[in-house]
């Protein structure tokens, strides 16, 4: 039997040109009065995918979810689910279920009846409802809480009831609106992995809306980064992080150092960038950019090495002064002010308990990185 991990590793329908899209947003626009919440957006989600819509609040990600659930109709464009156009189908006839940010548990019903609510609407026979409810309670480990009312539960338990209720009908797609937003950090991390297991075990398609990039990176197969109602990038977590398509994405996900500059010289394999502040950076040819073009070189802090002496083998080495040090336990973050004035953030894993090369405030320091450590952004 394949482990869940290997199923996950092999799962990549977005790279398969013959894969049939499951959910399709086709040039969807949604306007509220003069405000455009979603602007001519197209997106494809595959069956059994764990898909995250990531963006700041007000970027339109929740509107996308609500259009999928049927609470809002697109102003223009169409949404297809399994080939069927969803326009005009009311929420109570759509084969999707949603888990609400506020959980929206019915306060006057017990946990049991909350979970059974959707099944009763379908006219499922009573014994079947009872066995399905029992199954769901077991799934979220709340068997002994069946007779309680929502206000008799803790926040984490309520979240599980909401989850059980939304998967009880075995929807084609489960929509999750900030599913872990109301939980504290420890519980949130545990629940992330539970959600992933649940999605694998039930074989459902999950579309989750979140503003928490860590959450999206942990759980999702692919992430769509949304800004001002438009898709900035759709890619796997690793691609989003290591190969952001624009300055916005690079900034939005994780920490990043940006060097503004121009393409100074191109050879067969490398490009030399003249930084606006004077630094010369050599990178592998990744982007097809003509000499003289304005670009940004983006590099993550952990890809930068920091040392007190210039490394002999370094292609790119820039000198500066340690401006600030933040010791975070697992790693240390250095802020180095380069001699040309640019601030660079470099982080080092604290693999050993006692550091060999202790740098201190105001020490002279070199930051160095490999030619393939960063990305060149033209947008």
């Amino acid at each position: 039997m394949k482990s869940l991990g290997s199923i996950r590793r092999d799962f990549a329908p977005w790279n398969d040109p013959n894969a049939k899209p499951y959910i399709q947003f086709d040039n969807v626009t949604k306007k509220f009065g003069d405000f455009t919440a979603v602007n001519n957006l197209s997106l494809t989600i595959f069956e059994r995918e764990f898909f995250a819509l990531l963006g700041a609040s007000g970027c339109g990600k929740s509107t996308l979810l609500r259009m999928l659930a049927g609470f809002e109709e697109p102003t223009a464009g169409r949404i297809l689910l399994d080939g069927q156009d969803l326009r005009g189908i009311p929420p109570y006839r759509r084969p999707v279920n949603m888990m609400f940010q506020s959980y929206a548990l019915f306060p006057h019903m017990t946990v049991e009846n909350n979970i059974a609510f959707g099944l009763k609407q379908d006219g499922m026979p009573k014994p079947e409802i009872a066995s399905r409810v029992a199954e769901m309670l077991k799934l979220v480990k709340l068997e002994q809480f069946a007779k309680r009312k929502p206000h008799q539960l803790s926040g984490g338990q309520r979240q599980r009831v909401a989850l059980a209720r939304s998967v009880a009908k075995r929807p084609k797609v489960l929509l999750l609106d900030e599913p872990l937003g109301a939980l504290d950090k420890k519980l949130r991390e545990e629940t992330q992995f539970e959600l992933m297991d649940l999605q694998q075990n039930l074989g459902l398609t999950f579309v989750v809306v979140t503003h928490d990039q860590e959450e999206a990176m942990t759980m999702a197969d692919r992430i769509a980064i949304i800004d001002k109602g438009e898709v900035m990038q759709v890619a796997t977590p690793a691609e989003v992080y290591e190969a952001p398509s624009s300055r916005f994405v690079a900034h939005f996900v994780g920490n990043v150092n940006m060097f503004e500059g121009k393409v100074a010289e191109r050879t067969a394999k490398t490009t030399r960038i003249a930084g606006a502040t004077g630094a010369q950076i050599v990178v592998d040819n990744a982007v097809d950019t003509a000499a003289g073009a304005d670009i940004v070189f983006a590099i993550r802090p952990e890809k930068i090495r920091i040392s007190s002496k210039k490394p002999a083998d370094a292609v790119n080495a820039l000198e500066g002064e340690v401006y600030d040090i933040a010791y975070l336990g697992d790693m240390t973050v250095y802020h180095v002010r380069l001699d040309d004035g640019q601030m660079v953030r470099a982080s080092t894993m604290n693999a050993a308990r006692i550091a060999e090369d202790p740098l201190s405030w105001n020490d002279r320091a070199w930051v160095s990185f490999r030619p393939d450590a960063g990305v060149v952004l033209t947008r």
Partner: protein
Amino acid sequence: MNATWSRFNITSIVLGFAFLYLPIVLLIVFSFNESKLVTVWGGFSTKWYVSLFHNQGLMDATWVTARVGLISATVATVLGTLAALTLTRYTRFKGRVLFSGMVFAPLVMPEVITGLSLLLLFVAVGLDRGFLTVTLAHITLTMCFVAVVVQSRLITFDRSLEEAAMDLGATPVKTFFQITLPVIMPAIVSGWMLAFTLSLDDLVIASFTSGPGATTLPMKIYSQVRLGVTPEINAACTILIAVVAIGVVIASLANKRREVQRQLDEQAAQRG
């Protein structure tokens, strides 16, 4: 806590409670008076209570009041709830401000004006004054109170509850009856009780809009008092006070129990 009883505190409390309850205590005491003279104590007796139940006029008036109260409170609750739903849900229709202002105007309208204008209306349309007109008038009076009570609950109502119900397959009608209505039911019940109480003790509007054969209890009491206060009236009022007091005590006991239960529940939830 400061438990010392200064002379000043005691005096304030005695004066305050005396101001509030002395008239009522006097009324109750004299309802058990043997003498026919209201202000002269002639010994203990319950004969006025017995004669009260043989006073056909008062019994009729009580029956009328009860029917008017039940019918008008129920109709006013339905209409007031609908008005509250409209005002909180459809916030962008033309004339909403005017409509909400007009729904709530009777709250501050002097009763004399409401009564007089209703009387003019009934005369103009040729409606004979009687049970129907006083019931209609009480619906008009109490509907806005229900609307206020229900609206204040609806404002804090989480709309995602309804969305969740529809998402799980409930049609809008089912959603209303299975989710919205049960959740706002406490507010609707208190609206109904408020409407019933208002109808029960209204004298002014009833005097304008009632006709022969539909005399309400407050009207009856008032007219009898004008002929001279009899201990019978004291007895009737004592019974009214007892009914209201029992209602208040039951309501607050139920409230208290719910509160205690809730605290226990929350503690249980904390423990997991």
